């Protein structure tokens, strides 16, 4: 067995480890072991790469790795769970940027040869550079929006769509030029710069509430870019790993768009949040809301049989997760059955709310998905909506004129009583009024979510 056979076998081990890592994610009990296996696979791949024949420059590569590994680990340790979407966006960008740089370097090393590049090589180089650069720049903008370095609302200007399309056409033109044989470095350089600009422009008009879709899409992009890099370097380990990520990102993108009841095109180009509140929704809001007190709610909860807590991003913003967990514990002590209803887009990325509640020590078997919990609202005494709005809005079900019509929602209005914890009467993230708030079954508890829930905990203890 030659040295390169050995390396290929090591890469095969890596591929198997990655696939098992994803497989183990199908159950929370084994998921952590899967992740360790994935990390082991990565280590195997890196070690195998170092024994590649003809490799030089070990010292500087090792120094760079020795410096960047602890930085990555530190960032991963320090990040707060509410900031996970930013972190994932950042890593997407970093991975995409690395893929683009590798493509550019390989082009420099192989392009000025007298013979033309093989077609599959030049296509792979162009795709890796293009998609990697879009992913890098787009992720940085997504990061800036989520981190609130820049405004999260959609940024639009006249001619935006036409301009973006024109830029994309130019980029494709440059790519085709390279593939057709015009193998000049400045062309690929221009392609990368243009792709960076496109990445920025394409995320600018997408609002904060649509970030779950964008992050999943950028994740897919980075995976595909890594896969293209595999075609550039003829390494199966990159092709397979990149494609696994591409498949995952694509599936999540579709799921998130479906959970918003919108097409991907609408999310990406619709500049949601710009929509005006429809006349119908305003008419509905003429009804009066019924404010209540923590004491009244506490009595209602303490003597209920089944309570479903519906957490939204507002809960995470108010850092009320631990207080909510305390409330659930108090209620359970009194024999109340407590569950959490998690909408797929309850956070800023797929599955975000589950992580936030897990961090507050909520056992995961209490967390119910939308399809699982919706039939149960009919038998629920109190639905406690905390910092969630659009995902509970019945207009999505029954008013075809509403901008969110068709979005799957949590049917909280089917329960006997609804308590909505809200800071004020401002509409939700999508800027749409919620008829749930004026439903005769609904009472509103105004104030900071954490403060309100803490008062509820105290009041339940005395109820």
């Amino acid at each position, binding site marked *: 067995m030659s040295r390169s056979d050995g390396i290929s076998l090591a890469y095969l081990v890596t591929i198997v480890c990655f696939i098992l890592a994803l497989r183990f994610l199908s159950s929370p009990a084994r998921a*952590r072991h899967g992740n360790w296996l994935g990390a082991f696979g990565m280590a195997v791949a890196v070690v195998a790469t170092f024994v590649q024949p003809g490799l030089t420059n*070990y010292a500087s*590569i090792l120094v*760079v790795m020795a410096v960047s590994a602890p930085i990555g680990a530190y960032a991963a*340790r320090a990040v707060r769970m509410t900031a996970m979407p930013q972190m994932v966006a950042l890593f997407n960008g970093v991975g995409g940027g690395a893929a683009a740089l590798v493509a550019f370097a390989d082009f420099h090393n192989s392009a000025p040869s007298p013979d033309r590049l093989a077609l599959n090589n030049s296509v792979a180089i162009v795709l890796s550079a293009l998609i990697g650069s879009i992913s890098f720049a787009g992720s940085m903008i997504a990061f800036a929006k989520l981190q609130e370095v820049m405004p999260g609302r959609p940024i639009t200007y006249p001619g935006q769509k036409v301009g973006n399309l024109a830029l994309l056409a130019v980029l494709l033109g440059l790519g085709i030029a390279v593939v057709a044989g015009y193998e000049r470095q400045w062309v690929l350089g221009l392609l990368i710069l243009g792709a960076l600009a496109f990445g920025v422009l394409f995320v600018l008009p997408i609002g904060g509430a649509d970030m779950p879709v964008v992050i999943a899409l950028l994740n897919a992009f980075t995976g595909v870019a890594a896969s293209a890099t595999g075609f550039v370097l003829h390494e199966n380990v990159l092709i397979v790993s990149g494609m*696994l990520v591409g498949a995952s990102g694509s599936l999540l993108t579709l799921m998130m768009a479906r959970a918003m009841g919108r097409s991907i095109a609408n999310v990406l180009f619709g500049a949601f949040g710009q929509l005006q509140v429809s006349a119908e929704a305003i008419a509905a809001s003429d009804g009066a809301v019924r404010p209540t007190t923590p004491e009244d709610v506490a009595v209602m909860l303490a003597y209920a049989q089944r309570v479903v807590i519906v957490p939204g991003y507002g809960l995470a913003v108010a850092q009320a997760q631990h207080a909510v967990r305390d409330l659930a514990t108090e209620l359970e002590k009194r024999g109340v059955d407590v569950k959490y209803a998690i909408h797929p887009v309850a956070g800023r990325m*797929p599955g975000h709310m589950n992580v936030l509640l897990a961090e507050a020590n909520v056992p995961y078997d209490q967390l119910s998905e939308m399809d699982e919990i919706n039939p149960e609202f009919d038998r629920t005494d109190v639905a406690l909506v905390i910092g969630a709005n659009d995902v509970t809005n019945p207009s999505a079900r029954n008013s075809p004129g509403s901008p969110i019509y068709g979005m799957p929602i949590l049917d909280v209005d089917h329960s006997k009583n609804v308590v909505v914890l809200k800071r004020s009467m401002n509409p939700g993230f999508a800027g749409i009024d919620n008829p749930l708030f004026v439903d005769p079954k609904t009472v509103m508890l105004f104030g900071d979510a954490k403060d309100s829930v803490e008062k509820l905990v105290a009041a339940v203890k005395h109820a």
Partner: protein
Amino acid sequence: MTTSFLIELTVLILAAFLGVEVISKVPTLLHTPLMSGTNAIHGIVVVGAIIVAGIPGQPTWLRIVTLAAVALGTGNAVGGFVVTDRMLEMFKKRKPGEQEQQEA
């Protein structure tokens, strides 16, 4: 088209189907760890970065570019696995009898 390219393409397509198959079994509960886990996996570009950084006789500017790619890929892979581990550690099932213990 060459045979090796066709083999690579075959591998790609099979990986796509396998990916969809495996990932559709991941519950929504774990979608965030899935994203950060796949994030770590695309850190595999570090392998490509090491290969191009190790090519002898490159000009200094290109050396910087390739080493930058190594740095990005390494940070991506290490950070991705660490943050995923941190998250998965938090997912706990309710212990049987926990409620009774609290009442006692």
